[in-house]
Protein backbone atom coordinates (compact mmCIF):
# COMPACT_ATOMS: atom_id res chain seq x y z
CA UNK A 1 0.00 0.00 0.00
CA UNK A 2 1.33 3.39 -1.00
CA UNK A 3 1.66 6.20 1.47
CA UNK A 4 -1.51 8.01 2.33
CA UNK A 5 -1.81 11.31 0.50
CA UNK A 6 -3.86 13.96 2.28
CA UNK A 7 -5.23 16.27 -0.35
CA UNK A 8 -8.48 17.88 -1.46
CA UNK A 9 -9.85 16.38 -4.66
CA UNK A 10 -9.94 19.89 -6.20
CA UNK A 11 -6.17 19.96 -5.90
CA UNK A 12 -5.77 16.50 -7.39
CA UNK A 13 -8.00 17.67 -10.22
CA UNK A 14 -5.84 20.73 -10.92
CA UNK A 15 -2.71 18.56 -10.96
CA UNK A 16 -4.36 16.00 -13.25
CA UNK A 17 -5.35 18.69 -15.74
CA UNK A 18 -1.73 19.89 -15.93
CA UNK A 19 -0.48 16.39 -16.51
CA UNK A 20 -3.08 15.67 -19.21
CA UNK A 21 -2.46 19.00 -20.93
CA UNK A 22 1.13 17.96 -21.64
CA UNK A 23 -0.09 15.29 -24.02
CA UNK A 24 -3.32 16.89 -25.20
CA UNK A 25 -3.15 20.39 -26.64
CA UNK A 26 -6.91 20.50 -27.18
CA UNK A 27 -7.48 21.01 -23.45
CA UNK A 28 -8.30 24.59 -22.44
CA UNK A 29 -9.52 25.67 -19.02
CA UNK A 30 -12.06 28.31 -18.07
CA UNK A 31 -12.84 29.63 -14.63
CA UNK A 32 -15.14 32.28 -13.23
CA UNK A 33 -12.88 34.15 -10.83
CA UNK A 34 -12.38 31.17 -8.54
CA UNK A 35 -9.21 29.68 -10.02
CA UNK A 36 -7.42 29.86 -6.69
CA UNK A 37 -10.22 27.97 -5.00
CA UNK A 38 -11.11 25.44 -7.69
CA UNK A 39 -7.36 24.87 -8.19
CA UNK A 40 -7.50 25.47 -11.90
CA UNK A 41 -4.84 28.00 -10.87
CA UNK A 42 -2.39 25.10 -11.02
CA UNK A 43 -3.20 24.76 -14.73
CA UNK A 44 -3.24 28.53 -15.21
CA UNK A 45 0.30 28.76 -13.89
CA UNK A 46 1.57 25.99 -16.16
CA UNK A 47 -0.41 26.97 -19.26
CA UNK A 48 -1.34 30.65 -19.03
CA UNK A 49 -2.18 30.87 -22.74
CA UNK A 50 -4.65 27.99 -22.46
CA UNK A 51 -6.48 29.42 -19.46
CA UNK A 52 -9.35 31.89 -19.76
CA UNK A 53 -10.81 33.68 -16.79
CA UNK A 54 -14.38 34.61 -17.67
CA UNK A 55 -14.89 36.72 -14.58
CA UNK A 56 -17.88 36.26 -12.32
CA UNK A 57 -20.26 35.17 -15.07
CA UNK A 58 -20.86 31.44 -14.90
CA UNK A 59 -23.65 31.25 -17.45
CA UNK A 60 -21.52 33.07 -20.00
CA UNK A 61 -18.60 30.78 -19.20
CA UNK A 62 -20.64 27.64 -19.93
CA UNK A 63 -21.85 28.96 -23.28
CA UNK A 64 -18.33 30.09 -24.19
CA UNK A 65 -17.12 26.58 -23.37
CA UNK A 66 -19.82 25.26 -25.69
CA UNK A 67 -18.60 27.51 -28.50
CA UNK A 68 -14.98 26.48 -27.93
CA UNK A 69 -15.91 22.82 -28.11
CA UNK A 70 -17.61 23.27 -31.50
CA UNK A 71 -14.17 24.35 -32.74
CA UNK A 72 -12.43 21.21 -31.52
CA UNK A 73 -11.25 22.30 -28.09
CA UNK A 74 -11.84 20.26 -24.97
CA UNK A 75 -12.93 23.01 -22.59
CA UNK A 76 -12.92 22.41 -18.85
CA UNK A 77 -15.17 24.97 -17.16
CA UNK A 78 -14.76 25.23 -13.41
CA UNK A 79 -16.49 27.07 -10.61
CA UNK A 80 -18.04 26.22 -7.27
CA UNK A 81 -20.55 23.40 -7.75
CA UNK A 82 -23.31 25.75 -6.62
CA UNK A 83 -22.70 28.31 -9.35
CA UNK A 84 -21.48 25.92 -12.05
CA UNK A 85 -24.52 23.65 -11.87
CA UNK A 86 -27.03 25.94 -10.18
CA UNK A 87 -26.53 29.39 -11.65
CA UNK A 88 -25.58 28.00 -15.05
CA UNK A 89 -27.92 25.00 -15.14
CA UNK A 90 -29.85 26.18 -18.13
CA UNK A 91 -26.77 27.09 -20.13
CA UNK A 92 -25.42 23.61 -19.43
CA UNK A 93 -28.71 22.01 -20.41
CA UNK A 94 -29.32 23.95 -23.61
CA UNK A 95 -25.86 24.95 -24.85
CA UNK A 96 -23.88 21.87 -23.78
CA UNK A 97 -26.29 19.01 -23.05
CA UNK A 98 -28.75 19.37 -25.92
CA UNK A 99 -26.03 19.55 -28.61
CA UNK A 100 -24.07 16.91 -26.64
CA UNK A 101 -20.89 18.99 -26.72
CA UNK A 102 -17.55 17.80 -25.43
CA UNK A 103 -17.35 20.11 -22.42
CA UNK A 104 -16.12 19.10 -18.98
CA UNK A 105 -17.75 20.88 -16.06
CA UNK A 106 -15.98 20.89 -12.73
CA UNK A 107 -17.90 21.80 -9.59
CA UNK A 108 -15.72 22.44 -6.60
CA UNK A 109 -16.75 23.05 -2.98
CA UNK A 110 -19.50 20.48 -3.30
CA UNK A 111 -21.28 19.22 -0.21
CA UNK A 112 -21.45 20.43 3.36
CA UNK A 113 -17.71 19.82 3.77
CA UNK A 114 -17.34 23.23 2.13
CA UNK A 115 -17.67 24.24 5.77
CA UNK A 116 -17.57 27.76 7.13
CA UNK A 117 -18.97 29.51 4.05
CA UNK A 118 -22.32 28.02 4.94
CA UNK A 119 -25.51 27.11 3.09
CA UNK A 120 -25.19 29.42 0.07
CA UNK A 121 -21.91 27.75 -0.89
CA UNK A 122 -22.53 24.17 0.24
CA UNK A 123 -23.96 22.67 -2.91
CA UNK A 124 -26.19 19.70 -2.16
CA UNK A 125 -28.04 19.57 -5.45
CA UNK A 126 -25.36 19.41 -8.17
CA UNK A 127 -25.57 15.66 -8.75
CA UNK A 128 -29.36 15.84 -8.96
CA UNK A 129 -29.25 18.70 -11.46
CA UNK A 130 -26.61 17.17 -13.69
CA UNK A 131 -28.23 13.71 -13.64
CA UNK A 132 -31.35 15.14 -15.28
CA UNK A 133 -29.49 16.19 -18.43
CA UNK A 134 -29.58 13.51 -21.15
CA UNK A 135 -26.10 12.32 -22.12
CA UNK A 136 -24.35 13.92 -19.13
CA UNK A 137 -21.81 11.72 -17.35
CA UNK A 138 -21.64 12.46 -13.61
CA UNK A 139 -18.46 11.68 -11.68
CA UNK A 140 -17.82 11.93 -7.95
CA UNK A 141 -14.30 10.69 -7.13
CA UNK A 142 -13.43 9.71 -3.58
CA UNK A 143 -9.73 10.35 -3.12
CA UNK A 144 -6.58 11.71 -4.71
CA UNK A 145 -5.82 8.70 -6.88
CA UNK A 146 -9.39 8.25 -8.00
CA UNK A 147 -9.57 11.92 -8.97
CA UNK A 148 -6.42 11.63 -11.09
CA UNK A 149 -7.89 8.67 -12.94
CA UNK A 150 -11.38 10.16 -13.21
CA UNK A 151 -10.06 13.41 -14.67
CA UNK A 152 -8.17 11.44 -17.31
CA UNK A 153 -11.28 9.42 -18.11
CA UNK A 154 -13.40 12.58 -18.29
CA UNK A 155 -11.04 14.12 -20.84
CA UNK A 156 -10.86 10.93 -22.89
CA UNK A 157 -14.63 10.47 -22.90
CA UNK A 158 -16.27 12.27 -25.83
CA UNK A 159 -19.33 14.11 -24.52
CA UNK A 160 -20.34 16.29 -21.60
CA UNK A 161 -19.07 15.33 -18.16
CA UNK A 162 -19.75 16.78 -14.73
CA UNK A 163 -17.05 16.11 -12.16
CA UNK A 164 -17.58 16.86 -8.48
CA UNK A 165 -14.66 18.28 -6.49
CA UNK A 166 -14.31 18.75 -2.76
CA UNK A 167 -12.72 21.54 -0.79
CA UNK A 168 -11.65 19.52 2.21
CA UNK A 169 -8.26 17.79 2.32
CA UNK A 170 -8.91 14.08 2.81
CA UNK A 171 -6.79 10.96 3.17
CA UNK A 172 -6.32 8.72 0.18
CA UNK A 173 -7.25 5.07 0.60
CA UNK A 174 -6.71 3.67 -2.88
CA UNK A 175 -3.43 2.06 -3.82
CA UNK A 176 -2.18 3.55 -7.10
CA UNK A 177 -0.31 0.32 -7.86
CA UNK A 178 -3.51 -1.69 -8.09
CA UNK A 179 -6.25 0.91 -8.53
CA UNK A 180 -8.20 0.72 -11.77
CA UNK A 181 -10.77 3.28 -12.87
CA UNK A 182 -13.36 2.33 -15.43
CA UNK A 183 -16.00 4.87 -16.37
CA UNK A 184 -19.44 3.62 -15.36
CA UNK A 185 -18.11 0.76 -13.24
CA UNK A 186 -18.49 0.62 -9.49
CA UNK A 187 -15.75 -0.81 -7.32
CA UNK A 188 -16.39 -3.49 -4.70
CA UNK A 189 -13.99 -2.42 -1.98
CA UNK A 190 -15.03 -5.02 0.54
CA UNK A 191 -16.97 -8.26 0.09
CA UNK A 192 -19.84 -9.08 2.41
CA UNK A 193 -23.21 -10.85 2.38
CA UNK A 194 -25.38 -9.40 5.16
CA UNK A 195 -25.88 -5.90 3.78
CA UNK A 196 -24.39 -3.55 1.16
CA UNK A 197 -23.14 -0.02 1.67
CA UNK A 198 -22.90 2.02 -1.52
CA UNK A 199 -21.06 5.31 -1.15
CA UNK A 200 -19.67 8.06 -3.34
CA UNK A 201 -17.08 10.80 -2.96
CA UNK A 202 -15.61 11.97 0.30
CA UNK A 203 -17.76 9.64 2.43
CA UNK A 204 -16.39 6.47 0.82
CA UNK A 205 -13.40 6.47 3.15
CA UNK A 206 -15.66 7.08 6.14
CA UNK A 207 -17.84 4.17 5.02
CA UNK A 208 -14.73 2.04 4.61
CA UNK A 209 -13.74 2.67 8.22
CA UNK A 210 -17.29 2.00 9.42
CA UNK A 211 -17.40 -1.29 7.52
CA UNK A 212 -14.10 -2.33 9.13
CA UNK A 213 -15.59 -1.62 12.55
CA UNK A 214 -18.67 -3.72 11.75
CA UNK A 215 -16.43 -6.49 10.49
CA UNK A 216 -14.70 -6.51 13.89
CA UNK A 217 -18.13 -6.78 15.48
CA UNK A 218 -18.61 -9.98 13.49
CA UNK A 219 -20.68 -8.75 10.57
CA UNK A 220 -20.20 -9.27 6.86
CA UNK A 221 -20.78 -5.94 5.09
CA UNK A 222 -20.24 -5.30 1.39
CA UNK A 223 -18.86 -1.91 0.41
CA UNK A 224 -19.20 -0.46 -3.07
CA UNK A 225 -17.64 2.77 -4.26
CA UNK A 226 -19.65 4.41 -7.03
CA UNK A 227 -17.47 7.07 -8.66
CA UNK A 228 -19.69 7.27 -11.74
CA UNK A 229 -23.17 8.21 -10.59
CA UNK A 230 -24.37 8.47 -14.17
CA UNK A 231 -24.40 6.15 -15.99
CA UNK A 232 -24.65 4.04 -12.85
CA UNK A 233 -23.27 0.50 -12.75
CA UNK A 234 -26.58 -1.37 -12.79
CA UNK A 235 -24.96 -4.81 -12.59
CA UNK A 236 -23.07 -4.14 -9.38
CA UNK A 237 -26.24 -2.74 -7.75
CA UNK A 238 -28.46 -5.64 -8.87
CA UNK A 239 -25.90 -8.16 -7.70
CA UNK A 240 -25.63 -6.47 -4.31
CA UNK A 241 -29.41 -6.35 -3.91
CA UNK A 242 -29.81 -10.00 -4.83
CA UNK A 243 -26.93 -11.24 -2.71
CA UNK A 244 -27.30 -9.10 0.41
CA UNK A 245 -30.99 -8.16 0.38
CA UNK A 246 -30.53 -4.70 1.90
CA UNK A 247 -28.72 -1.53 0.78
CA UNK A 248 -27.56 1.67 2.43
CA UNK A 249 -26.48 4.55 0.21
CA UNK A 250 -24.23 7.30 1.54
CA UNK A 251 -23.54 10.65 -0.06
CA UNK A 252 -22.69 14.19 0.87
CA UNK A 253 -25.68 15.50 -1.09
CA UNK A 254 -29.41 15.95 -0.68
CA UNK A 255 -31.04 12.52 -0.52
CA UNK A 256 -33.33 13.82 -3.28
CA UNK A 257 -31.82 13.23 -6.69
CA UNK A 258 -28.38 11.96 -5.83
CA UNK A 259 -26.66 8.59 -5.54
CA UNK A 260 -29.44 7.17 -3.38
CA UNK A 261 -32.06 7.89 -6.01
CA UNK A 262 -29.82 6.55 -8.77
CA UNK A 263 -29.48 3.28 -6.83
CA UNK A 264 -33.22 3.19 -6.08
CA UNK A 265 -34.01 3.62 -9.79
CA UNK A 266 -32.18 0.35 -10.42
CA UNK A 267 -33.38 -1.50 -7.34
CA UNK A 268 -37.08 -0.68 -7.63
CA UNK A 269 -37.27 -1.87 -11.22
CA UNK A 270 -34.94 -4.84 -11.10
CA UNK A 271 -34.63 -6.28 -7.61
CA UNK A 272 -36.76 -4.58 -4.91
CA UNK A 273 -35.02 -4.63 -1.55
CA UNK A 274 -35.06 -2.01 1.24
CA UNK A 275 -32.74 0.91 0.55
CA UNK A 276 -31.85 3.43 3.24
CA UNK A 277 -30.63 6.70 1.82
CA UNK A 278 -28.12 8.47 4.04
CA UNK A 279 -27.24 12.04 3.11
CA UNK A 280 -28.61 15.48 3.79
CA UNK A 281 -32.33 15.18 4.39
CA UNK A 282 -33.92 17.86 2.22
CA UNK A 283 -32.52 20.78 4.12
CA UNK A 284 -29.84 23.42 3.80
CA UNK A 285 -26.50 23.25 5.54
CA UNK A 286 -24.96 25.84 7.85
CA UNK A 287 -21.58 27.26 8.78
CA UNK A 288 -18.99 25.36 10.73
CA UNK A 289 -15.72 23.48 10.40
CA UNK A 290 -16.07 20.72 7.80
CA UNK A 291 -15.47 17.71 10.03
CA UNK A 292 -17.84 19.03 12.69
CA UNK A 293 -20.53 19.42 10.05
CA UNK A 294 -19.93 15.97 8.61
CA UNK A 295 -20.23 14.58 12.15
CA UNK A 296 -23.48 16.52 12.77
CA UNK A 297 -24.95 15.23 9.52
CA UNK A 298 -24.01 11.65 10.37
CA UNK A 299 -21.60 11.32 7.49
CA UNK A 300 -18.49 10.24 9.37
CA UNK A 301 -17.35 6.78 10.36
CA UNK A 302 -19.32 6.80 13.61
CA UNK A 303 -22.61 7.91 12.13
CA UNK A 304 -22.35 5.49 9.24
CA UNK A 305 -21.48 2.56 11.54
CA UNK A 306 -24.57 3.36 13.60
CA UNK A 307 -26.81 3.31 10.53
CA UNK A 308 -25.35 -0.02 9.41
CA UNK A 309 -26.09 -1.49 12.86
CA UNK A 310 -29.68 -0.20 12.70
CA UNK A 311 -30.23 -1.68 9.26
CA UNK A 312 -28.64 -5.01 10.21
CA UNK A 313 -31.02 -5.21 13.17
CA UNK A 314 -33.96 -5.02 10.75
CA UNK A 315 -32.89 -8.15 8.91
Amino acid at each position, binding site marked *: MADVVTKATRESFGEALCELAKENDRI*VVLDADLAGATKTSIFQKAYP*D*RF*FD*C*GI*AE*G*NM*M*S*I*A*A*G*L*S*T*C*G*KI*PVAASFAMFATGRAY*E*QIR*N*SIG*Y*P*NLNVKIAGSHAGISTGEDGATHQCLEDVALMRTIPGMTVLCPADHYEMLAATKAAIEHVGPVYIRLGRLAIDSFNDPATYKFELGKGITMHEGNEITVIATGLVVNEARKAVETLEKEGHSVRLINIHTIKPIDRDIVIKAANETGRIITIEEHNVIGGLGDAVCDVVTSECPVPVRKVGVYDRFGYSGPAWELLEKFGLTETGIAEVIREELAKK
Partner: protein
Amino acid sequence: MQTTEKRQLQILATKARLGAVIGTFNAKSGHPGGSLSAADIMTYLYFKEMNVDPANPSDADRDRFVLSKGHCCPSLYAVLALKGFFEWEELYKLRHVGAMLQGHPDMKGTPGIDMSTGSLGQGVSAACGMALAGKFDKKDYRVYAILGDGECEEGQVWEAAMFAAHNKLDNLVVIVDQNGLQIDGPVCEVCGIEPLDKKFESFGFNVVKIDGHNFDEIEAAFENAKSVKGKPTAILAKTVKGKGVSFMEDKVDWHGKGPNKAEFEMASEELNAEIARLEGEC
Protein backbone atom coordinates in the same frame (compact mmCIF):
# COMPACT_ATOMS: atom_id res chain seq x y z
CA MET B 1 -22.80 47.57 -54.52
CA GLN B 2 -23.64 46.92 -58.16
CA THR B 3 -27.36 47.10 -58.96
CA THR B 4 -27.44 43.59 -60.41
CA GLU B 5 -25.83 42.11 -57.34
CA LYS B 6 -28.21 44.01 -55.11
CA ARG B 7 -31.19 42.73 -57.09
CA GLN B 8 -29.89 39.19 -56.77
CA LEU B 9 -29.59 39.56 -53.01
CA GLN B 10 -33.05 41.11 -52.81
CA ILE B 11 -34.50 38.20 -54.77
CA LEU B 12 -32.80 35.68 -52.47
CA ALA B 13 -33.96 37.56 -49.38
CA THR B 14 -37.52 37.62 -50.69
CA LYS B 15 -37.32 33.90 -51.40
CA ALA B 16 -36.03 33.42 -47.84
CA ARG B 17 -39.08 35.35 -46.59
CA LEU B 18 -41.30 33.12 -48.69
CA GLY B 19 -39.57 30.09 -47.16
CA ALA B 20 -40.19 31.43 -43.65
CA VAL B 21 -43.88 31.92 -44.49
CA ILE B 22 -44.13 28.43 -46.00
CA GLY B 23 -42.46 26.96 -42.92
CA THR B 24 -44.56 28.72 -40.32
CA PHE B 25 -47.78 28.09 -42.29
CA ASN B 26 -47.11 24.36 -42.54
CA ALA B 27 -45.99 24.21 -38.91
CA LYS B 28 -49.09 26.19 -37.85
CA SER B 29 -46.68 27.91 -35.46
CA GLY B 30 -43.27 29.54 -35.28
CA HIS B 31 -41.99 33.09 -35.44
CA PRO B 32 -42.54 34.84 -38.76
CA GLY B 33 -42.14 38.45 -37.52
CA GLY B 34 -38.49 38.29 -36.48
CA SER B 35 -37.67 35.85 -39.28
CA LEU B 36 -38.74 38.42 -41.83
CA SER B 37 -36.95 41.31 -40.13
CA ALA B 38 -33.61 39.47 -40.13
CA ALA B 39 -33.93 37.94 -43.62
CA ASP B 40 -31.88 40.55 -45.49
CA ILE B 41 -28.95 40.34 -43.08
CA MET B 42 -28.91 36.53 -43.10
CA THR B 43 -29.09 36.54 -46.90
CA TYR B 44 -26.17 38.95 -47.11
CA LEU B 45 -24.14 36.84 -44.68
CA TYR B 46 -24.60 33.56 -46.54
CA PHE B 47 -24.48 34.89 -50.10
CA LYS B 48 -21.91 37.65 -49.85
CA GLU B 49 -20.04 37.79 -46.58
CA MET B 50 -19.32 34.36 -45.19
CA ASN B 51 -16.91 31.71 -46.35
CA VAL B 52 -19.05 28.57 -46.12
CA ASP B 53 -19.36 25.51 -48.32
CA PRO B 54 -22.61 23.53 -48.31
CA ALA B 55 -20.64 20.50 -49.49
CA ASN B 56 -18.41 20.70 -46.42
CA PRO B 57 -20.51 22.22 -43.63
CA SER B 58 -18.05 21.34 -40.85
CA ASP B 59 -14.92 22.71 -42.50
CA ALA B 60 -12.70 23.82 -39.61
CA ASP B 61 -11.73 27.03 -41.42
CA ARG B 62 -15.25 28.17 -42.31
CA ASP B 63 -16.83 31.33 -40.99
CA ARG B 64 -19.39 30.65 -38.25
CA PHE B 65 -22.91 31.92 -37.81
CA VAL B 66 -24.92 31.79 -34.60
CA LEU B 67 -28.58 32.75 -34.60
CA SER B 68 -28.70 33.84 -30.98
CA LYS B 69 -32.37 34.75 -31.49
CA GLY B 70 -32.93 31.11 -32.39
CA HIS B 71 -36.70 31.42 -32.75
CA CYS B 72 -36.16 33.26 -36.05
CA CYS B 73 -34.80 30.10 -37.68
CA PRO B 74 -37.53 29.79 -40.35
CA SER B 75 -35.76 32.33 -42.54
CA LEU B 76 -32.33 30.92 -41.63
CA TYR B 77 -33.52 27.49 -42.76
CA ALA B 78 -34.76 29.03 -45.99
CA VAL B 79 -31.40 30.76 -46.56
CA LEU B 80 -29.54 27.50 -45.86
CA ALA B 81 -31.81 25.66 -48.31
CA LEU B 82 -31.26 28.35 -50.96
CA LYS B 83 -27.52 28.03 -50.37
CA GLY B 84 -27.71 24.28 -50.88
CA PHE B 85 -27.21 22.89 -47.38
CA PHE B 86 -30.43 20.85 -47.70
CA GLU B 87 -33.55 20.57 -49.84
CA TRP B 88 -36.11 23.38 -49.95
CA GLU B 89 -38.83 20.76 -49.36
CA GLU B 90 -37.64 20.39 -45.76
CA LEU B 91 -39.29 23.75 -45.04
CA TYR B 92 -42.70 22.16 -45.52
CA LYS B 93 -41.98 19.80 -42.61
CA LEU B 94 -40.70 22.45 -40.19
CA ARG B 95 -41.66 21.55 -36.60
CA HIS B 96 -43.26 18.26 -37.64
CA VAL B 97 -42.60 15.07 -35.71
CA GLY B 98 -39.48 13.40 -37.04
CA ALA B 99 -38.55 16.38 -39.23
CA MET B 100 -34.99 17.62 -39.57
CA LEU B 101 -35.95 21.26 -39.01
CA GLN B 102 -36.67 21.81 -35.34
CA GLY B 103 -38.60 24.69 -33.79
CA HIS B 104 -35.24 26.13 -32.75
CA PRO B 105 -31.87 25.44 -34.42
CA ASP B 106 -30.35 22.02 -33.74
CA MET B 107 -26.70 21.78 -34.75
CA LYS B 108 -26.69 18.01 -34.39
CA GLY B 109 -29.46 17.41 -36.87
CA THR B 110 -29.29 20.23 -39.41
CA PRO B 111 -26.37 20.78 -41.82
CA GLY B 112 -25.16 24.37 -41.75
CA ILE B 113 -26.30 25.13 -38.21
CA ASP B 114 -23.16 25.99 -36.23
CA MET B 115 -24.77 26.23 -32.79
CA SER B 116 -27.97 25.00 -31.17
CA THR B 117 -29.83 28.02 -29.89
CA GLY B 118 -33.24 29.01 -28.68
CA SER B 119 -32.63 30.08 -25.12
CA LEU B 120 -31.94 33.79 -25.50
CA GLY B 121 -28.58 35.24 -24.55
CA GLN B 122 -26.63 32.02 -24.90
CA GLY B 123 -25.83 32.12 -28.60
CA VAL B 124 -23.78 35.27 -28.37
CA SER B 125 -21.62 33.68 -25.66
CA ALA B 126 -21.13 30.57 -27.78
CA ALA B 127 -20.09 32.86 -30.63
CA CYS B 128 -17.49 34.37 -28.27
CA GLY B 129 -16.18 30.85 -27.63
CA MET B 130 -15.87 30.23 -31.38
CA ALA B 131 -14.11 33.56 -31.91
CA LEU B 132 -11.78 32.82 -29.00
CA ALA B 133 -10.91 29.43 -30.49
CA GLY B 134 -10.19 31.15 -33.81
CA LYS B 135 -7.81 33.60 -32.13
CA PHE B 136 -6.19 30.81 -30.16
CA ASP B 137 -5.62 28.68 -33.27
CA LYS B 138 -4.54 31.74 -35.29
CA LYS B 139 -7.21 31.03 -37.88
CA ASP B 140 -8.69 33.65 -40.15
CA TYR B 141 -12.32 32.67 -39.86
CA ARG B 142 -14.88 35.18 -38.58
CA VAL B 143 -17.88 34.65 -36.34
CA TYR B 144 -21.28 36.32 -36.76
CA ALA B 145 -24.15 36.33 -34.28
CA ILE B 146 -27.59 37.85 -34.72
CA LEU B 147 -29.36 38.95 -31.56
CA GLY B 148 -32.84 40.26 -31.10
CA ASP B 149 -33.31 43.67 -29.51
CA GLY B 150 -35.56 42.14 -26.87
CA GLU B 151 -32.80 39.60 -26.30
CA CYS B 152 -30.56 42.45 -25.15
CA GLU B 153 -32.60 42.41 -21.93
CA GLU B 154 -30.83 39.14 -21.06
CA GLY B 155 -27.92 39.79 -18.70
CA GLN B 156 -25.84 37.14 -20.43
CA VAL B 157 -25.64 39.33 -23.56
CA TRP B 158 -23.68 41.85 -21.52
CA GLU B 159 -21.53 39.20 -19.86
CA ALA B 160 -20.62 38.08 -23.36
CA ALA B 161 -20.05 41.66 -24.51
CA MET B 162 -17.61 42.25 -21.65
CA PHE B 163 -15.80 39.03 -22.48
CA ALA B 164 -15.59 39.80 -26.20
CA ALA B 165 -14.12 43.25 -25.66
CA HIS B 166 -11.77 42.09 -22.91
CA ASN B 167 -10.40 39.39 -25.19
CA LYS B 168 -10.20 41.75 -28.18
CA LEU B 169 -12.33 39.48 -30.35
CA ASP B 170 -12.17 41.54 -33.53
CA ASN B 171 -13.16 38.43 -35.46
CA LEU B 172 -16.62 38.65 -33.88
CA VAL B 173 -19.52 40.65 -35.29
CA VAL B 174 -22.73 40.92 -33.32
CA ILE B 175 -25.76 42.12 -35.26
CA VAL B 176 -28.77 43.35 -33.33
CA ASP B 177 -31.99 42.97 -35.31
CA GLN B 178 -33.72 46.05 -33.94
CA ASN B 179 -37.29 45.50 -35.02
CA GLY B 180 -38.46 47.19 -31.84
CA LEU B 181 -41.00 44.57 -30.81
CA GLN B 182 -40.97 41.63 -28.41
CA ILE B 183 -43.69 39.22 -27.30
CA ASP B 184 -45.24 41.45 -24.67
CA GLY B 185 -45.11 44.62 -26.76
CA PRO B 186 -42.70 47.33 -27.90
CA VAL B 187 -39.22 46.81 -26.42
CA CYS B 188 -39.23 50.39 -25.15
CA GLU B 189 -42.39 49.67 -23.15
CA VAL B 190 -41.52 46.20 -21.85
CA CYS B 191 -38.05 47.04 -20.52
CA GLY B 192 -36.19 49.62 -22.56
CA ILE B 193 -32.70 48.84 -23.80
CA GLU B 194 -31.68 52.24 -25.15
CA PRO B 195 -29.25 53.81 -25.65
CA LEU B 196 -28.03 50.58 -27.21
CA ASP B 197 -25.22 52.20 -29.23
CA LYS B 198 -23.78 53.84 -26.11
CA LYS B 199 -24.13 50.59 -24.18
CA PHE B 200 -22.13 48.61 -26.74
CA GLU B 201 -19.62 51.44 -27.10
CA SER B 202 -19.08 51.60 -23.38
CA PHE B 203 -18.64 47.82 -23.34
CA GLY B 204 -15.74 48.28 -25.76
CA PHE B 205 -17.37 47.60 -29.14
CA ASN B 206 -17.00 49.27 -32.49
CA VAL B 207 -20.61 50.26 -33.20
CA VAL B 208 -22.22 50.75 -36.61
CA LYS B 209 -25.85 51.78 -37.03
CA ILE B 210 -27.61 50.84 -40.25
CA ASP B 211 -30.91 50.26 -41.97
CA GLY B 212 -31.07 46.47 -41.80
CA HIS B 213 -32.97 46.23 -45.08
CA ASN B 214 -30.51 48.29 -47.14
CA PHE B 215 -27.86 46.09 -48.74
CA ASP B 216 -25.49 48.99 -49.36
CA GLU B 217 -25.53 49.84 -45.69
CA ILE B 218 -25.30 46.18 -44.69
CA GLU B 219 -22.23 45.74 -46.91
CA ALA B 220 -20.57 48.90 -45.62
CA ALA B 221 -21.13 47.78 -42.02
CA PHE B 222 -19.53 44.36 -42.52
CA GLU B 223 -16.62 45.94 -44.41
CA ASN B 224 -16.18 48.42 -41.59
CA ALA B 225 -16.16 45.54 -39.08
CA LYS B 226 -13.32 43.84 -40.95
CA SER B 227 -11.24 47.00 -40.89
CA VAL B 228 -11.48 47.54 -37.14
CA LYS B 229 -8.77 45.75 -35.18
CA GLY B 230 -8.57 44.99 -31.49
CA LYS B 231 -12.27 45.17 -30.71
CA PRO B 232 -15.48 43.37 -31.67
CA THR B 233 -18.12 45.09 -33.76
CA ALA B 234 -21.81 45.53 -33.02
CA ILE B 235 -24.02 46.31 -35.99
CA LEU B 236 -27.25 47.85 -34.79
CA ALA B 237 -29.66 47.17 -37.62
CA LYS B 238 -32.93 49.06 -37.62
CA THR B 239 -35.48 46.70 -39.10
CA VAL B 240 -39.22 46.22 -39.50
CA LYS B 241 -40.76 43.20 -37.86
CA GLY B 242 -42.64 41.19 -40.47
CA LYS B 243 -40.82 43.03 -43.30
CA GLY B 244 -42.02 42.12 -46.78
CA VAL B 245 -45.49 40.89 -45.84
CA SER B 246 -47.52 44.06 -45.57
CA PHE B 247 -50.13 42.82 -43.11
CA MET B 248 -47.43 41.47 -40.78
CA GLU B 249 -45.25 44.57 -40.79
CA ASP B 250 -44.65 46.20 -37.43
CA LYS B 251 -47.33 44.09 -35.75
CA VAL B 252 -46.32 42.52 -32.45
CA ASP B 253 -49.08 39.99 -32.99
CA TRP B 254 -46.92 38.31 -35.65
CA HIS B 255 -44.09 37.56 -33.24
CA GLY B 256 -45.01 33.98 -32.62
CA LYS B 257 -47.83 32.51 -34.67
CA GLY B 258 -48.13 30.84 -38.04
CA PRO B 259 -50.36 32.31 -40.76
CA ASN B 260 -53.68 30.60 -41.54
CA LYS B 261 -54.48 29.47 -45.08
CA ALA B 262 -55.92 32.80 -46.25
CA GLU B 263 -53.05 34.73 -44.66
CA PHE B 264 -50.53 32.34 -46.16
CA GLU B 265 -52.00 32.80 -49.61
CA MET B 266 -51.97 36.58 -49.26
CA ALA B 267 -48.37 36.56 -48.02
CA SER B 268 -47.21 34.18 -50.76
CA GLU B 269 -48.90 36.25 -53.43
CA GLU B 270 -47.24 39.40 -52.21
CA LEU B 271 -43.79 37.82 -51.94
CA ASN B 272 -44.05 36.02 -55.29
CA ALA B 273 -45.10 39.29 -56.93
CA GLU B 274 -42.07 40.98 -55.39
CA ILE B 275 -39.78 38.21 -56.63
CA ALA B 276 -41.26 38.58 -60.14
CA ARG B 277 -40.85 42.34 -59.99
CA LEU B 278 -37.21 42.09 -58.91
CA GLU B 279 -36.46 39.47 -61.52
CA GLY B 280 -37.96 41.77 -64.12
CA GLU B 281 -35.48 44.43 -63.08
CA CYS B 282 -32.48 42.17 -63.53
